């Protein structure tokens, strides 16, 4: 599976890889993006099966990035992973086609279960 992780915090990229590897979810090709603009461009080029997408980011936020990704890659699944799970953001993300919204801080199991469902 091709997985694009989008977050401005480097530690989240590190953490996602660490958690998935520790839980033996290993058949994954990773790519990283650190803001919304980069995410849209990277999704177009990399054509991921799944994107883990933060909301609060510089340049273009996660909601705008989701719009762009879904426009170019309608078959890509997107899971939002953010601390900003406000009513407005969750509803907007789901209506734009996000599969789920994981609220930070997340549990290992929560992340793994969502990723496994997409495999």
């Amino acid at each position, binding site marked *: 599976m091709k997985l694009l992780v989008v977050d*401005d*915090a*480097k*530690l*989240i990229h*590190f*953490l996602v890889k*660490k958690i998935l590897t520790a839980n033996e979810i290993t058949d994954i090709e990773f790519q990283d993006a650190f803001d919304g603009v980069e995410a849209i461009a990277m999704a177009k080029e990399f054509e991921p099966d799944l994107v883990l997408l933060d909301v*609060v*980011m*510089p340049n273009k936020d996660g909601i705008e990035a989701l719009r762009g990704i879904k426009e170019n890659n309608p078959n890509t699944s997107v899971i939002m992973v*953010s*601390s*900003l*799970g*406000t*009513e*407005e*953001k*969750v*509803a907007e993300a*789901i*209506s734009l086609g996000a599969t789920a*919204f994981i*609220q*930070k*801080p*997340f549990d290992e199991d929560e992340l793994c279960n969502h990723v496994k469902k997409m495999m």
Partner: protein
Amino acid sequence: MAIKFFGHYLLDNGILSNFELVEAVDYQTSKNLSLGELAVREQLITAKDADKINDKQRSLDKRFGEVAIELSLLTDPQIMDLLGLQKKEKVFFGEVLILKNFLTQEKLDEALAKFEEEQKLEVVKLDDKIEAIDKDGVIKDSIGILQKLYTRVVHDYIKLTNVNKVENNNGIIALQKMRGDIHLDFALQPDDAVSLAISSKFLKMDFDAIDEMVIDIIAEFVNVVLGNIAVKFSAESTKLNLTPPTIMDVDTFVYSDYYSFEFGTTQGSITLFLKL
């Protein structure tokens, strides 16, 4: 358990579907009007005036009411009337779920009780001066959520020890801003020992010096705490956004601009700075 709004909790527990969540939030948003929308509906200002206030509000980083008064488009009593009307007309999320037949009253009550139990925060006693300015409970809930998430991430004890008596140069300061219907500047300054404890628990690996990764983790910890505070205040159609967190220079950070709250932990101290 992270802080979630009620609809997200229902979604995660399979009580609401994606479609029902979006439908309920959309309905609630269409009924719970912003101050500007209400002022237009009540024919106090035109839609063009509302746009002008909104534009200015964003560029000046002020509230809608403040800008409307400054531009002489609305008066103070009119703003108070609009706020009263907004409160009176407010539709709660649970009411929408019943109205749309997504849940029965019994199922709603049961889910709400479980949700409230999971989201409960420790009650903090603040001095009268701070209680007086904390009308919406932003300060109290910020403290409660910081304590809850610190305990959850670090698995450690944390207790409020000092209020407004803190100014030190020990530790990283990460600052983040909440904008929209609530304005809140939020900064945390953990001392080095607490920074290392947060980092070690966050990534489940040992850190023994403050490096780039530790700084990144503290910024992310601020983002997590403030995001959860935003969620707590996001119900009932409140619109909120966050700026990305930034690391501040401890020598130029203006401590006197903030209310400060120092917490003791078994590792060391962490200070919360709030500006409403």
